[in-house]
């Protein structure tokens, strides 16, 4: 029997109720932080329960916890949520990101407001991952912009206003074609079936589209998701935004919000417009490969750690896109897995960089040197995260990248071959960063750096555990996501696209 959709509604409501509580206790110092952490822990627990309950074999599509309630028929607005294998990992990632952002990157400036925005952002991204209705997805997808804008513009660095506006405008303009595309699809369906306006994913994925319409709509949807991900060449907002955002904001944006783009690509662009794939696959895969190489090259020359992470993310998003577009089931499983793994790894990176920044007040690579001597545990943690990002066998990054490359080789050999150089690129820039920051002879300032405290170590425990666990034993995760992806691949290939 299908599980009640109340579980998903709870996932959406808990952070919003949390906001009310945070605002209630805003005058007492520290109380809002305690409430925030409590809510985040509750959300994490709920997500784990939901993940544990989720039964991937319940329906052919892998959907569980589904419910649909029409809110306004003339507008086509409905509350329609469900969970399948692809959204499952994203739900877990959302909760994890919130919890670790709160625990690891506490920022005491106007804490109640900051925590409220983080909680609203959690509901918005949770909603995007759970929505089974295109309009509802769009609402939540757009809603993520508002808290992100305020997080950057209020708590960011010196260039925060410009960075926030740039981020907002890029993504807002990016979503214009998405909205138009959704409306087009909705009316296409309405004119065909002569019923009420309806944006349900199930309904719209059955709409018959011509080849041209598919390609145009794929481009409209893909543009929005490419800006959000970001995919080269739509990435230009991301380095400045990641660098200027407060640490909690950077974590949310790169670990979580970027995944909204790739999630949208997998679920909506690919799932709804399979006819477009034969035309769009080479183009998007080429962009992905360029992104991998370009991101790697830029990460080599980037001057500060946050920018290295931003460009490394660009390369990793390239891998995700490569896997998602390849049309191979294995590669797509790898892509969905990498969405989660990259999220976890990025959380680790940003937390570690924030620890360095807290001690040295800078994150420019040339000012840092020989930290290994003064902070050995920090160095070890950094090494683990770096190796996971490079894709060392036995760590989580390896599993997902291996699956992606394996699948891509089978279906689109040359893109796979060129993409594989990205793995080498990652090794080059990360090890070089490591060499410059942690090796060498430290000057007085770098020698005075304290090692990570106990609390900071504990915050990173989940990251390290997940990196190791998903590196050696990814089976449960893969089992949970496989039926949904198999269904997606079948749907895509039935529509006249070869494997």
């Amino acid at each position, binding site marked *: 029997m299908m599980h009640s959709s109340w579980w998903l509604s709870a996932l959406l409501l808990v952070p919003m109720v949390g906001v009310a509580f945070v605002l209630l206790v805003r005058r007492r110092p520290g109380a809002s932080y305690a409430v925030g952490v409590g809510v985040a822990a509750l959300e994490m627990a709920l997500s784990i329960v939901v993940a544990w309950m989720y039964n991937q074999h319940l329906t052919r599509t892998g959907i569980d916890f589904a419910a649909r309630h029409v*809110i*306004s028929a*003339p*507008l*086509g*607005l409905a509350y329609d949520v469900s969970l399948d294998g692809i959204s499952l990992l994203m739900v877990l990632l959302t909760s994890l990101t919130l919890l670790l952002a709160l625990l690891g990157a506490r920022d005491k400036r106007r804490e109640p407001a900051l925590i409220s925005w983080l909680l609203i952002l959690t509901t918005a991204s949770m909603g995007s991952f759970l929505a089974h209705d295109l309009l509802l997805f*769009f*609402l*939540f997808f*757009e*809603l993520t*912009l*508002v808290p992100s*804008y*305020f997080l950057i*513009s*209020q708590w960011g660095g010196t260039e925060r*206003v410009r960075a*926030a*506006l740039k981020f*907002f*405008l890029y993504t*807002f*303009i990016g979503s*214009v*074609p998405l*909205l*138009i595309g959704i*409306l*087009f699809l*909705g*009316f296409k369906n*309405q004119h065909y079936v002569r019923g009420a*306006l309806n944006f349900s994913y199930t309904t719209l994925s059955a709409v018959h589209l011509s080849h041209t319409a598919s390609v145009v709509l794929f481009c409209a949807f893909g543009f929005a998701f490419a800006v959000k991900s970001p995919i080269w060449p739509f990435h230009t907002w991301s380095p400045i935004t990641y660098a200027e955002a407060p640490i909690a904001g950077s974590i949310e944006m790169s670990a979580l919000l970027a995944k909204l783009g790739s999630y949208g690509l997998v679920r909506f662009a690919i799932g709804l417009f399979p006819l477009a794939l034969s035309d769009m696959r080479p183009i998007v895969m080429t962009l992905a490969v360029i992104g991998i190489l370009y991101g790697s090259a830029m990460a080599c020359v980037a001057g500060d750690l946050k920018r290295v992470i931003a460009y490394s993310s660009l390369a990793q998003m390239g891998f995700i896109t490569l896997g998602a577009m390849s049309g191979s089931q294995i590669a797509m499983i790898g892509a969905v897995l990498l969405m989660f793994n990259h999220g976890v790894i990025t959380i680790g990176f940003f937390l570690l960089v924030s620890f360095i920044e807290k001690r040295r007040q800078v994150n420019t690579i040339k000012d840092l040197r020989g930290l290994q001597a003064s902070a050995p545990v920090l160095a070890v943690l950094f090494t683990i995260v770096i190796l996971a990002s490079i894709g060392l066998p036995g760590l989580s990054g390896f599993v997902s990248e291996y699956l992606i490359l394996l699948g891509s080789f089978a279906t689109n050999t040359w893109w796979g071959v060129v993409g594989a150089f990205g793995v080498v690129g990652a090794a080059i820039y990360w090890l070089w960063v490591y060499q410059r920051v942690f090796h060498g002879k430290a000057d007085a300032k770098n020698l005075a750096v304290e090692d990570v405290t106990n609390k900071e170590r504990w915050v990173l425990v989940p990251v390290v555990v997940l990196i190791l666990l998903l590196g050696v034993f990814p089976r449960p995760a893969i089992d949970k996501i496989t039926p949904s992806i198999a269904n997606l691949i079948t749907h895509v290939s039935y529509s006249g696209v070869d494997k």
Partner: protein
Amino acid sequence: MIKIPSVHYLAIAPVLIFFGASLALLVTSALRRSRLSATAATVFSAKCSLAVVVVAVFQWLYVSQHGASETISHAIVLDRFGSMATVAVALGTLLTILVARDWAIRTKLLGIENHILIMATSAGAIMMAVANDLVVIFLGLEILSIGLYVLVAMDRHRARSAEAALKYFLLGGLAAAVFIYGVAILYGATGTTTISTMSLFFAANYLLHPGLAYLGGALILIAFAFKVAAVPFHNWAPDVYEGAPTPITGYMAAVVKVGAFLGFIRVILSGLGTNLDTWRPLLFALIVLSTIVGASVGLTQRNVKRLLAYSSINQAGFMLLGLWAGTGRGIASTLFFVCTYVPVIIATFAIVGLVGGATDDQHDIESYRGLGRRQPWLGAALALLLLSQLGAPFTLGFFAKFSVVAAVMDAGGTTLGVITMISAAIAAAFYLRWTQILFADPEPDQARLKVPGATGFVIAFGVAVVVVFGIWPTPIMWLCQHAAISFLP
């Protein structure tokens, strides 16, 4: 001998109430020996507005039972479309009167002229929305405009106020002339001024020489474009918005739009509706220019009243989308947009008026620096109202924009949808800049703003509408849809 036509008083009751109340107030204040207190006038006007809302509800119920009808020899219609407009106007009047009262106390311009004029103007707005005759629309337009000319000049302490009024008067007079000329030409082409008859005429006849009808229609379209401040007939708006007393600016942005847009819909979609394809290119140009110019020129503004003027030009472009679509969905969505804009924009201008201070001239965007930090509730309220105008999800403004864009998409206007949404993205920049300044680090020695009760109520009302119907737009959408159904011939 003149035959006196039958009068269905329910249809004209809202106009009669507002106009009668206005006259009563005028006469009483003139005859009384002691001054009539402004408080009493406020309470009286507020009650009248509520009475109009109640009457409109009865109209709605009556039409639901008996169907739409025409009265006073086809000059006035009684339909749900009109009732909906009446409610919006009455609500806007009520909110404006509350805000204007506090404004009058702040600026020491106490008097009851405000109330008299606002109610008379509202009568004109309602008349435009329920008219079925071009001459009656003109009558409404004039009643609306003449009241406004005076209202704009109400702030005796500021020369800008009189300047704005003069500007508005000259250009408004021109627009009225253009309108009546258009009516005359259209009468020459069709032999009638009654909108429904004109619609039948166009449906039943094929015009071999349609030039005259086109010219008349185009002139009327221009006059309406002037009234709703659509580009390129928008030049008066920023100056007048800036010069007018702030509550009156809010009133203009809200109630005048209701009257003008709903009258516009009747003329263009009912009267000239059979030839909609003729008017579409004109509407297309108006929409594209209004949205793009409104959004991009708004970026350069530092005075918030001018900024909101350009914002409302941008919004007017969106409201025109439903007219371009011309379908039931289009009418419903424009109605939705216009009606929901009323509380939002009046509440926004209520806050602007508060920040404007006793002289009502502190409207530089820098006066808002840190306001949201000193007074979180006020700041959050303004931020929400601005986000709604931006069209952020889960605010009323999103569904307003969504419904009009959906309507044009439904009617095949993908290009328009894309252009207007991009303009919304451009406009987002100035709303966001404002909210950013709102929550920036405050100047150290700024005094807290006092929020008087009535203004506070209006702001709270606007915010409540934005939030509640932003999550649950169903009731308003339902009303608009039913209003549009009963309207279409």
